């Protein structure tokens, strides 16, 4: 069975994407000043990180004069929803499913008849205890 795989981000890709969300579009020089220089990273490192984000479909780029300007393709909320959905849909027993504990199993359903029988059991126990229903 093929496991659904998500987009894994490296540490620097995470930092750069966070900057794109926080401050909007940026070219390599601007991003280097924001995220690269404070960490003593070269301009080439930032450029290849932006290109990786572009190739992974997480950033768009436009020609702006002689340089490319990059912007995030997804909003923070859209990224969160996609990432969580992928993990929630993971097949039980696969790698992704192992890093997640759900209050109620998301991949298997009890079935209406069983659910009603269990609810009746709980109601009966409440009646036995004299609790208001």
């Amino acid at each position: 069975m093929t496991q659904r795989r998500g987009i894994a981000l490296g540490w620097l890709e995470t930092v750069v994407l966070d900057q794109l969300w926080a401050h909007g579009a940026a070219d390599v020089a601007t991003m280097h000043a924001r995220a690269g220089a404070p960490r003593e990273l070269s301009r080439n490192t930032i450029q290849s990180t932006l290109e990786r984000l572009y190739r992974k479909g997480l950033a768009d780029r436009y020609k702006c004069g002689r340089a490319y300007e990059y912007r995030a393709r997804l909003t923070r909320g859209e990224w969160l929803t996609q990432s969580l959905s992928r993990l929630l849909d993971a097949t039980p027993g696969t790698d992704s499913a192992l890093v997640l504990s759900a209050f109620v199993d998301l991949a298997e359903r009890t079935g209406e008849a069983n659910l009603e029988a269990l609810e009746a059991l709980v109601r009966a126990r409440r009646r036995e205890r004299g609790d208001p229903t």
Partner: protein
Amino acid sequence: MSAELGTLALSLLALLGFGVLTSLGSALAWPALERSLRGSHPAQRARWLFAFATAATWLPLLLLCLCLAPGFLALIGVSQDHCLRQSDRAHLCFAHPRLALSLPLGIVLSAAIAVLVAGGVRGARRLARWHDELSGLGLAGGVSLASGARRIDSPRPFSVTLGLWRPEIWVSSALVEALPSAQLEIVVEHERAHVRRRDSLRRLVAAVLSRPHLPIVRRRVLAELALACEEACDESAARLGDRLAVAETVLAVERLIAQATPHPSLVGFGDGGVAERVRSLLEPAPAEPASALHWWLGSALAIGAMWLAHPLHHLTERWLGWLLSVL
């Protein structure tokens, strides 16, 4: 050097033998263990199941260490040199290695090293990928609730604990809006128990170290471990007040998810442990496990292991000798 490699190959052969014995022994012992754990406190059950699942890896390693112990103890001067009385061809001792590396032993050694390296690389790559995926999720933020959980806008009702080292609780807006506050408190308390117990990490380690078990045994043990973890967290949530309220919350969330599932035919109908959890919550609270029991068992195991080292060492040398004569 060839003699040391010969002893190393012999040790790996012994490890393989112990692994096979442990897997077969576990398959025979599993029905009895499953019966004896029924009715015990879920937290205790989870500990036993974790020990049983991982035994497929640690028990063969422990047996090998015991086999090698007499040689090492003699080497550091703690016990008498047992090698002088020994002239077996299969001699498990790094202090006095005698067996030259032959072709069959060379093949065993190379295959074992290749499997270990490939397994290690694969495991490290998987861990790195999980780490990257989860750190990407952490980046996405989310609104923090007063309970310490994070709320995410989603039409799908769910509540999950995500992560291995520092797990985080995520609750969807659909669940927050649909559940009364008392039930939401129960849900978050259940998830907090997962965080405290590090259940994701526990299940991951169990899944990795249980690989040498027979597949049918491994599947059952891991499913029972997952259920025991859920029930242990239900017991924690029940400390908020009412066991029946926890049962009702489990059923309410199950119903909400069932209603929100767009294509019910695409999901499995195995109930995901809901029936067992609810039935367990309808019973009186199980007795808390006695913590001293583990110390007693651990001490007994350590004494027994020391007592077993010499007989096990000689027995292993004997069957390895027989194996070499066949090879």
